[in-house]
């Protein structure tokens, strides 16, 4: 299945600035695996050391949260969009760093 993975702004620095990546994958997990093997630095931002999706990163298949589907085993079909939705906190952007 050819699916599109949408990369949110904070993570684009790890995908060579690309906002979306197309790949062939039968499940959401496969698509994420494809993404992190292409862009190695992305891995630690999405997965814990033991390979679980981090709890502050949500993954959606089209408009559904995969936690309420079959998680990473959720099957994809052609033309599906997978979105990575990390928590962002900015509001007034107090300069800090």
């Amino acid at each position, binding site marked *: 299945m050819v699916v599109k993975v949408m990369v949110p702004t904070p993570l684009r620095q790890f995908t060579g600035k690309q906002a979306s990546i197309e790949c062939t994958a039968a499940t959401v997990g496969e698509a994420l695996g494809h993404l992190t093997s292409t862009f190695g630095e992305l891995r630690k931002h999405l997965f814990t050391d033991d390979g679980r999706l981090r709890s502050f990163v949500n993954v959606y298949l089209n408009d559904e949260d995969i936690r309420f589907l079959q998680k990473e085993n959720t099957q994809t079909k052609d033309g599906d969009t997978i979105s990575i*939705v990390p*928590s962002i906190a900015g*509001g007034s952007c107090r300069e800090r*760093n």
Partner: protein
Amino acid sequence: MAIPTVALSQQDVKLSREEIQRYSRHLIMPEVGMEGQLKLKRSRVLMIGAGGLGAPLGLYLAAAGVGHLGVLDFDVVDNSNLQRQVTFTTADVGKLKSEAAKARLSALNPSIEIQSYETRLTSENALELFKDYDIIVDGTDNFPTRFLVNDACVLLGKPNVYGSIFRFEGQATVFGYPGGPCYRCLYPEPPPPGLVPSCAEGGVLGVLPGIVGSIQAMETIKLILGAGDPLVGRLLLFDALAMRFRELKLRKNPECPVCGNHPTVTKLIDYEEFCGIRGEETLPMTDGIPEITPKEMKARQDRGDDLFILDVREVHEYQICNLNGKLIPLGELPRRVSELDSSKEMIVHCRSGKRSADAIFFLQKAGFKKLWNLKGGILAWSDEVDPTVPKY
């Protein structure tokens, strides 16, 4: 979804002649009308943060005639705020944001009541502050406060109109609505510090908070009026570069630690600790990271020491100002590490010293030994060595 309207006080209020003129464009709309305008007048809205999101929010809520507006912010107006925080003028620089916002909003609409709170929202004061308001609007800039606002709203059963921004991207939704999901249904835990780029690294386009804050204002007003479909159970994502809105479904998580079937959070906790940043401001990650002050670095350069300067900021930051170092942005360091010579003594710097500490941590693991972190970054260099280097 059936819309249980926000419980407003039943206090008997009327509009003056002047108010009828002022709100005439609302009054002639059937969706608002006299009844809606009186609901607005009776409503009490607390804004957490008077910054980027708070600017359009405060202006539109005041203009619309929200009768009681609370503005909570402990910060002062800085020059670098004016690019997006349009409530403030250049003359406000140095003033308390809560006070400056109150003055601006009172000037816009003298017939409403505005209460400013020059305070940091804490687990100790949140419930007490929130209890007098119908709706809380979250326009803060950090994870501990976001979780605190969420938990306090869930505990008190008050809607939390949420918005957040990053560079060109925004999110908005309404949490804490009866029967709807909360922030923790979406994100049970905060990201560990350092894994998500902060705003200072990220920046934000000035118009973006204007758009997202306006969406929050619209949702707040709809909740008060009980009009339309509230942004409940839907996360609105806005990408300004693509100029595209998308919508994702948000579900109430039965296992949510605050609003789930078996809540484990039944009172407010220590949110700084929860977010893993307790003491971060006083104790930056300097363990095992050797530091050099700007003055020491200058003295060594003047002495003619062979020091290699590595700048780990972004290209566009380098263009603002630089110390003639080699530029490798932090995100590119892992794949460009071969460009560096580990036999040379190296000073690593960024804007304030945090990213460079991360870079040194990485380089140490890669086997580099002769490393120094420029303490306070290019900001400190400007303060202590060369004031012609602009601060940003």
